């Protein structure tokens, strides 16, 4: 490998790591046995959320249908010049191995902080390929057509610092330490092949804070994601997973990742009623203005006695609405909250992650309608945009991306 590896033999680290891991497990179970396994009373692995595992291997990659974990780090890379198909294969074998181990709660090979790998906390590592990846691999013919930079929208204020990318690693877990450790391992192992382009880190409600199947609020105070297709339903599969027979397509999906800055200062000036008119839903229950509970079907034809529609034409709900399952998108959005400016102005918003089988059929029409007219645009600005193909899954012993590269 390259010269910037630490001057310790891999075997020593492996052995040492295994001993440490084994010792920690042994110590942990001894302590747990002695204390009855109560959280906070021992130094070993907690018997609850920390050891939960999301399987890495399968026909489809984890991290899409997976119930959204509390923390996410989206890391985009730019491939180093001269990276070719063979080099990409080496990289993906290594990173897939890292991901398979870490998601099981095992240290990666040559993991310099093996202890930090022991609590996987439902870790998922999801691989995405940008247009540049296909070009470097000499596989442009296998790239889905809409995996390309999106057309420009009038509302965009895209910054190159948050846009594009050849390779994406989406790292999610219910614990921030787990995400940090996985990110460190993967970034180090990617170093010979690629440079870090951007990292977008986000959060949702912590594990155990609320019912995981319930829609969560975003930083506008708005319930965000009501109309999402539910995992495990035919509607979800239709919307998200590709079914073309080609092995590099079957079980894949696409990801549009938009960084959306919220104007919280301006949003402050809106009264509650005005906010609900802008969104088209009640803030407390998420019910459409024509309904009483969150999942009520909105009635866009309902009018007040004076003739105005109850749900405004310009409401976000109206503009984003789609009817057919194959037009829906899966939003698996995280919140970001960077440090405020000296005068307290917020730097917060959404890491808007949208998964769909076909960007052109599903994502673009919605985004176009929103860009043309959606009053919520007054308080949101897209400042980053990136598009990736989410590769099919891999079986045990295999690696992500093999179907594309071989």
């Amino acid at each position, binding site marked *: 490998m390259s010269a910037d590896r630490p001057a310790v033999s891999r075997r020593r680290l492996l052995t040492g790591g295994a001993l440490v891991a084994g010792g920690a497990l042994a110590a942990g179970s001894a302590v747990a046995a002695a204390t009855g396994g109560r959280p906070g009373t021992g130094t070993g692995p907690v018997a609850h959320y920390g050891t939960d595992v999301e399987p890495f291997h399968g026909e489809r990659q984890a991290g899409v249908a997976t119930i959204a974990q509390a923390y996410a780090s989206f890391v985009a890379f730019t491939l180093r010049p001269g990276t070719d198909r063979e080099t990409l294969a080496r990289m993906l074998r290594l990173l897939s191995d890292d991901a398979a181990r870490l998601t099981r709660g095992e240290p990666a090979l040559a993991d310099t902080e093996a202890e930090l790998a022991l609590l996987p906390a439902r870790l998922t590592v999801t691989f995405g390929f940008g247009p540049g990846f296909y070009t470097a691999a000499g596989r442009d013919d296998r790239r889905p057509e809409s995996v390309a930079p999106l057309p420009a929208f009038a509302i965009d204020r895209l910054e190159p610092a948050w846009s594009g990318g050849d390779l994406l690693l989406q790292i999610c877990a219910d614990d921030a330490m787990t995400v940090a450790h996985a990110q460190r391992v993967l970034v180090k192992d990617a170093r010979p092949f690629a440079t870090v382009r951007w990292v977008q880190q986000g959060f949702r409600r912590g594990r155990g804070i609320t019912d995981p199947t319930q829609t969560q609020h975003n930083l506008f105070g708005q319930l965000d994601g009501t109309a999402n297709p539910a995992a495990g339903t035919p509607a979800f599969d239709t919307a998200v997973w590709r079914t073309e027979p080609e092995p590099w397509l079957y079980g894949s999906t696409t990801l549009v990742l938009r960084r959306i800055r919220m104007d919280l200062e*301006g949003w402050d*000036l*809106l009264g509650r*009623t*005005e906010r609900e*008119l*802008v969104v088209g839903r009640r803030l407390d229950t998420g019910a459409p203005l024509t309904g009483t509970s969150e999942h009520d079907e909105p009635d866009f034809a309902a*009018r*007040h*006695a*004076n*003739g*105005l*529609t109850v749900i*405004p*034409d*310009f409401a976000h709900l109206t503009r984003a609405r789609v009817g057919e399952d194959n037009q829906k998108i899966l939003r698996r959005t995280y919140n970001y909250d960077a440090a405020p400016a000296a005068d307290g102005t917020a730097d917060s918003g959404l890491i808007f992650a949208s998964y769909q089988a076909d960007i052109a059929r599903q994502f673009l029409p919605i985004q176009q309608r929103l860009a*043309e*007219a959606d*009053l919520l645009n*007054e*308080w949101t600005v897209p400042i980053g945009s990136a598009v990736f193909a989410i590769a099919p899954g891999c079986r045990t012993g295999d690696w992500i991306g093999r179907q594309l590269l071989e």
Partner: protein
Amino acid sequence: MTVAPSSLPASGRAVAGRAARLVAAALAAALLLVAPAAPAWAHNSLKSATPAADTTLTGAPQEVVLEFMSSLNPQYTTVTVTGPDQQQVGAAPEVSGARATVALGDTLANGAYTVAYRVVSSDGHPVQGSYAFTLAVPGAAAPPATSAQPTTAPTPEAELTADSTGVSGVTIAAIVIALLLLASAIVFFWLRSRRTP
């Protein structure tokens, strides 16, 4: 330990001069707030309407014209005209500057009509309201017997609007605060100048 302005050293007179200018500026600002012109940050509101509110017409109008205080955004301008049978009449509004025009068809039944609007101010805030007028063309068809006449009582949305040219609550609060500050500044500097060494 303050002294009368005339006996202050040069720097003290400069301070007193600055204070006087500040008071004058505060006074000017307070006057601006009271002035009738709509400040840029105010919400859009209806200035005038044809047919006018609560009037009874003896001839069918060709169109409804709403004139607002500020320019309209055509993307976010809605005007509905609802007839005595609770059905909407007229075309989608045509927007030009601060004016929205709804072309009405030929056949309008007699009875009560409600004009409602929903527009967006320059700061993005939605504003909505409505009013009524009555059509009573002699010899024309009577209003439909089955439907109840809509009242001209204000609709629940009216609380969001500034239909008239009245000043909003925010403006009033700002004026009161400015005048209080002005009054305190005047008293403070008056007291300073009155103290003898």
